[in-house]
Each structure stands twice: as structure tokens, then as C-alpha cells.
């Protein structure tokens, strides 16, 4: 389906739909996420059965602060949809979609690792990219890029111009 038709079809169930640059984006509330995904999957004209990616973006000056984006695509119809959920800064929790889309397992772990968003119902929510004892969630905008003054496991590595020979 082309973007305009797709948007019309999705709007029948999810009212907040935007079409931009040839892409269709639907915004849902946290409570309606699993219902929306279930409907998008079961509706025959839409048939969104493939989840490409789950990720988040941090907008610290806005409320809601974290915007989690689900990239869905359809094996049968070759169209795409983005589903977005906004999360407040003090309550960054979201139901996990692993039961519907097993591929979301590692994507959600990575989002938790980078942003600290907790996915309720995830079978194995641990850090995936960073070492287990790491403190902080580095991709948040409030965190520094690092690389200098790194502390880890009791070692301290200063910037290059202040290092002395061991």
C-alpha cells in the first residue's frame, strides 16, 4: 500500500498518524502499545509481522522525554510503519513486546543499556553492550561522551596529556 492509503487504514484504529517523507508514523500511548501491535499484526490488509528495530531517542527538554520507536514491516505487502511511544523522564517503563516479536529481545536490552528504559516482562533484561558493572546509561543526552577521565574497575585513565609512564 502506498503511504496515504496506509495512513488512512491505520487511522481507523490508531488516531494519531503522521505521513512525512514517504513514511507513516503512528503515535500510541504506553497503555495501548500491545493492543496496537496485535491489531497491526492481525489485520490482513496491514499484516505487520516483522519488527526491524526498537530504539529510543532522548529529548531532555521535552515532556515526554524518551521516545521509543518500533520499525515494523510487512512480509506480505512490503510496506513499513513506525510506531512511537513517549515515556516521561521519571517513569521510563514500557511493556516488553518479546511475546509478540521474539526479535525484540536484544533490541530492548540494548535500549535498556543505553537509556535506562525498563521493559516489563522481558525475560532477560541485562546490559548487552556495556560491561555488567557499568554505571550510567551513556546515550542519554545528559551523559558526557567520555574517553577522558575514565574510571572502571578501580582504574583511572586521565587525558592523554596528563599520562605518565607506568
Amino acid at each position: 500500500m502506498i503511504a496515504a492509503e496506509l495512513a488512512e487504514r491505520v487511522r481507523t484504529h490508531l488516531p494519531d498518524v503522521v505521513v512525512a517523507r514517504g513514511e507513516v508514523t503512528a503515535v500510541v500511548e504506553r497503555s495501548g502499545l500491545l493492543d496496537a501491535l496485535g491489531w497491526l499484526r492481525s489485520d490482513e490488509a496491514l499484516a505487520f509481522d516483522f519488527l526491524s528495530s526498537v530504539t529510543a531517542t532522548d529529548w531532555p527538554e521535552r515532556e515526554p522525554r524518551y521516545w521509543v520507536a518500533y520499525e515494523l514491516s510487512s512480509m506480505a505487502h512490503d510496506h513499513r510503519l513506525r510506531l512511537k511511544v513517549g515515556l516521561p523522564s521519571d517513569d521510563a517503563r514500557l511493556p516488553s513486546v518479546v511475546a509478540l516479536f521474539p526479535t525484540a529481545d536484544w533490541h530492548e536490552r540494548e535500549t535498556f543499556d543505553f537509556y535506562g528504559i525498563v521493559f516489563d516482562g522481558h525475560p532477560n533484561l541485562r546490559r548487552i553492550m556495556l560491561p555488567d558493572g557499568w554505571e550510567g546509561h551513556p546515550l542519554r543526552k545528559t551523559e558526557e561522551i567520555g574517553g577522558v577521565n575514565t574510571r572502571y574497575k578501580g582504574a583511572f585513565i586521565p587525558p592523554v596529556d596528563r599520562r605518565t609512564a607506568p
Partner: protein
Amino acid sequence: MSFDFRPDVDPRDPLSAEELRQETMIINMGPQHPSTHGVLRLLLELDGETVVRCEPIVGYLHTGIEKNTEYRTWQQGVTFVTRADYLAPFFNELAYTLAVERLLGIEAPLRAQVLRVLFCELNRIASHLVWLATSGMELGAVSVMLFGFREREDLLDIFEMATGLRMNHAYVRIGGVVLDLPPGATDAIDDFLDMLPGRIREYESLLSKNPIWVERNAGVGILSAEDAIALGVTGPTLRAAGVAKDVRRDEPYSGYETYEFDVITRESADCYGRFEIRMDEMRESMRIVEQCLDRLREPGPVMIEDPKVAWPSRLEVGPDGIGNSPAYVKHIMEESMEALIHHFKMVTEGVRVPAGEVYQPVESPRGELGMYVVSDGEHRPYRVRIRDPSFVNLQAVPTMVQGALVADAIAVIASLDPIMGGVDR
């Protein structure tokens, strides 16, 4: 001294002794291991030689590329993104550049698009050759390693001729490509295309009917189509299960709808099917490269003319690599102040991309490589997320390896062709 973890079994009864050997062994494979494709760690729970449970642990190559792109300009993002999946650098650059061009609302000139397709398909051949080399070595066919790298060296010569680098070229830029093909490149590509079919036949005669290769690959690592779709697996692994899904065919980009090529599938859903698919994909890539060479006969621009987007300098190959052409340096230093200011602003600040977000998928040698780019209207990316195919494909390893032997685990991972740079970014 007795430990009663099996209270129902009497240790003095010899017949019940068989049931006592129920404990499994947890073995760690990697991250430094000759047979795992890079720094992948596998936690295997073994019952004898059979894998009961497998958990891949990744993150040993986490580089923070996504965070770094938020601190650099849009054009500098190309050099970061290209090092994610380091065996398919053109694909990373292409996905990122296409996403940014969609945000900008521009399109690269026709010749630039043909060059992008040309280099992407050559990169696909190079990546499949490295896959063949390393898979062969991991499964014991060590001579295939030397053969695969021998062919790849010719391809790297072509890349070096065109971009100046053997790997991690920052060739595809926003608005086009950085340089046109130098004289002699088309001849080199022609020679390579003449030489390659014979070599691929050589590999097939070495491996396809080889009883050891068939034993180790046929029937190993079965992943059905439903499992693959549920786990998000794309690329040769999905096509080996019979699903004809290829982003070049389904959501064409860069003019792929105008090229003739087939989407290769198999029905066996095992490692041998993936091997056959990759060999055939090399042939399909050669077909596309020939069509590209035909289209490159007419000259044309390789970077768009829009001064707010295009890289300001005229680059040319100098005595020490690619750099600003002396004529251009003379122009900005001596002739035109506006040109100097424009050059300065474009190089330090760069393009300003309108706010919005875009997800751009391309078909990399490993599957669907997607780039989710968010902009807030500034001269730096706000968020760049690389949906890497290897990251998702590795989630299928526990399913494929369950109940198989340890040696099959190696064959399965080799057939998935994961690149840890893409997995960990």
C-alpha cells in the same frame, strides 16, 4: 560423603548409575577464539558433545559509534558509520547517506547513483569472499582462506584506485560520491569480472560436492521461515528458508529497480543452502556490475550542484593521496574571499538538515541494514541508530544450535556471517 541432588536414585544400585550422569557442563567459547567470527562469546551448556543451551554474549567490540555521531557534523558521520560493519563499509555509508538525503529532500545525480551501486555490489563480492575464506578456515578447509583473500586483493586494488583506501573508505557522501572513477578503473573492473567466474567455479569444484563440506553443512543449523521471521533474521539466512525477501527488490533505492538481477533462494534452510546462496549472489552481483559499467560510459557530475550541501572543494589525487586540487586551493586563497568563507563554513559546520526522522533500509551482504536517523534541524545528527543485520541474526543462534554438536555451532555461526563490528557498534 554423599550429595543428594538426586534423592530418588540409590547410589549403591548399579543399574541406576546410568541416570546419575545428568549434569551438564557449562563451557565458555571466546571472546578470543580462533573459530568464532571475531569477538563473540558463547556460553554453551553441554551434555557430552551435544549443546543443550547456548547463549551468545556480545558487546566486546562496543565502540560507541552512535554516541560519537551526535558530536560530529553530518558529513563526518559517514566516517564513523563506515566502521560499524567493517567488511561492508559502502553499505553503511550508503544507508546513512540515503537517510540524510531523504531528510534534506535531495537526490544524488544519476552517475553518482550508478557508482554507488557499482561499489556496493563489488563490496558484496568482497564480503562474500571473506565469508568463504573465514568459514572455510573455521571448518578446516584452510586453503580456501588463501584463495578467498587472493581474489579480495584484486578487489581492494580497485577500491584503492577509486577511493584511496583499501577499507573504510569514506566514499559515499551526502549529495553523491566524493570522486569520479579514475582512468583505468573500468578496465581493471572488466579484467576482474573476466577472472572471477572461473575462480568461483574453482571454489565450487573444491567445496560443493566435497563429502566433508557437505557433511558439516547439510542439515546443520536448520532455521525455518516462521522462526526466521519471528527472530527478525534477514539476508541469506532468510532466503535459505525459501522466503524471497531482498530490500533491493522490495524497497528499491539508488535505482535498483532499473537493474536486472535475481533474488536467490533455496528451500533447505540449512548451512549448505546459505553457502549456495552466497556463491550465487556473487554471480548476481557480477551481473549488476556489468550493467553499471554500461551506464558509466557517458560522463556526468558525481556530486550535486547545491552549494549548501555539496562538499566545497574539488578533490583530486595528488602525490600523497586524495586531497584538495591545487587549482581550488589557489581559488579560495587568492581569488575569492566568499569562496574561502563558504569553504570554511561548509567544512567546519557542514550541512544543516531539516528536523525529522527517517529509517532507510539497504540490503547488505548479511541482511537488512537499516539506518534510523533523527535530526533536530542542527548541523549535527541528533540520533543515528544502525539496525545491523548481524546483531539481529545472532539472536537466532540458540535456536539453530539447540541439540546440535559443538562443531555444528561453529558451522552455524560461520553460515550466519556475523561481523562483530556491526553487532556491537
